[in-house]
């Protein structure tokens, strides 16, 4: 008797509770805007506005002072498409990305496997592999500039080489890649390490019972479980590498490198804007670059969605 009454009452009470909550939530409506307002204000002024302004400037021949700019339509874009220096710079950024991304992904995975499987001194491995990432890019750049300097640098000395790392165009980008690997692998390493720690032990135990050896366990458990994190590492690295600038300019003493061989897209854009004072043209290149980055990001989202649908 009582039990049936309770079962009748309970859902009703739950319903009123939800109803009240909905009302309360609705009362919070007008506050919602205030929560996001401070961020949106900063975001509008320092992200959206410059983007729109850049779009506008890219159709003008504005110089650095911004005065006396006139509308020139698509001329900047037309010029950019025929500017071999821009294509070279874009090529350098792309080449750097192609070299860095696979190396960092593999290296980060191997370091994480190592740190995960050594039973002692975990904090020490973490510190050693991650510490370079904590250095400012300019400091990492200066250190390696010094290591690579011919004659007084320890890199050639230690390995018994005579390589002109920083002054020959066939080695300069490679020197920047080596520096970047050392400097940034720590972040991806930590992502992998965290992902490895998140794989449930019982999967491995079950596999062991079924007689799987270490290789099988890695191929059939570890690698599939790490697929998401690998996608993330690659995506973050591609976006970061395309924006190459800091370490390259520091290592090359703020020059575009031997025979312009390390001039990245960002560096070329800034040169056009701040050295040649061609703000309109530099803005057009910024917009082109934004489109490239957006295409890469959208391609990633599209790939992810396809894979999810394929998996189901």
């Amino acid at each position: 008797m009582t039990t049936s009454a309770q079962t009748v009452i309970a859902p009703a009470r739950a319903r009123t509770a939800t109803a009240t909550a909905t009302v309360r939530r609705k009362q919070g409506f007008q506050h919602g805007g205030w929560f996001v307002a401070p961020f949106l204000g900063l975001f509008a002024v320092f992200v959206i506005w410059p983007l729109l302004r850049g779009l506008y400037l890219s159709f003008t021949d504005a110089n650095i002072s911004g005065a006396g700019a006139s509308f020139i339509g698509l001329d900047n874009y037309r010029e950019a498409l025929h500017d071999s220096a821009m294509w070279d710079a874009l090529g350098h950024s792309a080449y750097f990305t192609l070299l860095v991304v696979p190396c960092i992904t593999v290296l980060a995975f191997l370091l994480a496997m190592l740190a995960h499987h050594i039973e002692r001194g975990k904090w020490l491995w973490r510190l050693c592999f991650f510490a370079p990432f904590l250095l400012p890019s300019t400091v990492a750049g200066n250190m390696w500039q010094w290591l690579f300097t011919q004659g007084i640098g320890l890199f050639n000395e230690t390995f018994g080489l005579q390589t002109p790392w920083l002054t020959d165009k066939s080695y300069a980008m490679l020197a920047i890649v080596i520096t970047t690997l050392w400097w940034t692998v720590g972040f991806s390493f930590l992502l992998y390490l965290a992902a490895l720690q998140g794989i449930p032990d019982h999967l491995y135990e079950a596999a062991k019972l079924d007689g799987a050896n270490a290789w099988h366990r890695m191929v059939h458990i570890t690698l599939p479980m790490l697929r998401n994190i690998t996608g993330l590492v690659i995506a973050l690295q591609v976006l970061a590498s395309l924006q190459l600038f800091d370490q390259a300019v520091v290592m090359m003493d703020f020059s575009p490198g031997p025979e312009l061989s390390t001039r990245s897209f960002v560096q070329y854009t800034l040169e056009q804007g701040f050295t040649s004072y061609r703000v309109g043209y530099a803005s057009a290149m910024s917009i082109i670059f934004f489109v490239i980055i957006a295409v890469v990001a959208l391609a990633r989202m599209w790939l992810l969605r396809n894979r999810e649908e394929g998996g189901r």
Partner: protein
Amino acid sequence: MTTATVIRTKSRKPWTPSQIVLTLIGVAVSAVFVAPIAAALFTSLKSETEASEIPPHWLPEVWTVQAWKSLWQTGNVSNWFVNSLVVSVCVTTIVLAVSALAGYGFARTEFRGKSVLMGVVMAGLMISPAVLGVPLFTTVQQMGMVDTYWGMILPQCAPAAMVYILYKFFQGIPRELEEAAFIDGAGRWRVFFTIVVPLARPSLSAVGIFTFIASWNNFLWPYMVTNNPDLMTMPNGIATVMNSYGIQWAQLMAGGLMAGLPLIVVFVFFQRQIVAGVAHTGLAGQ
């Protein structure tokens, strides 16, 4: 997690051959990673003449702190250090405040145009000062903020990524917690400050630590927006000003270590939070 670690330390496994091999590999690889930092440290303890000797050698023949001393006396280093600290602390504080509010607002409140605005913020994930350098500079110039603290600070304070991370976290907090408080008569803001913020402390500290690291190490933006050496931040001043005097390697390495050391010290103390933070932010990004 902690209990598991405790148990493992108590019943420590013996040194198996595979563990010995792995540990040796670990030591070798770590040595490679630490070597450049060690080389920089040793170089900073050489005299300038010894630092540019050919052929080079690892350890100083005469140990001296001359480079550190003269760096401190002649350079603007103390200035740069203070500038870095002011900029990073301000950026971190502002970012924490605005991104916590915005993350919560997007995750848990309703208002007109929310989904459109959220889409705009997501698109903002693709825009960095590197992408927008020149137009951002002209904007800041128009506002009269070139060569000012605000010019360095404010453009770093709208990180869509941090909002996204916190948005994801706030979405995961059970609604019942808030609803109970609403029924008890608490308002939105009260719920935010007394329930939501304390729950979010791990995420907030991850966001704070990463913002601080990124801001302390930021080179490109301060490089664009400051010309006045008195206003430069640490990485910036050391890279641009020191190079322009002709490179003095021992001083340059000392300066680099001074700029890099604070974060390494922070990492040693906050290792656990940082690792958890990377895990958290990394996984939240999926």
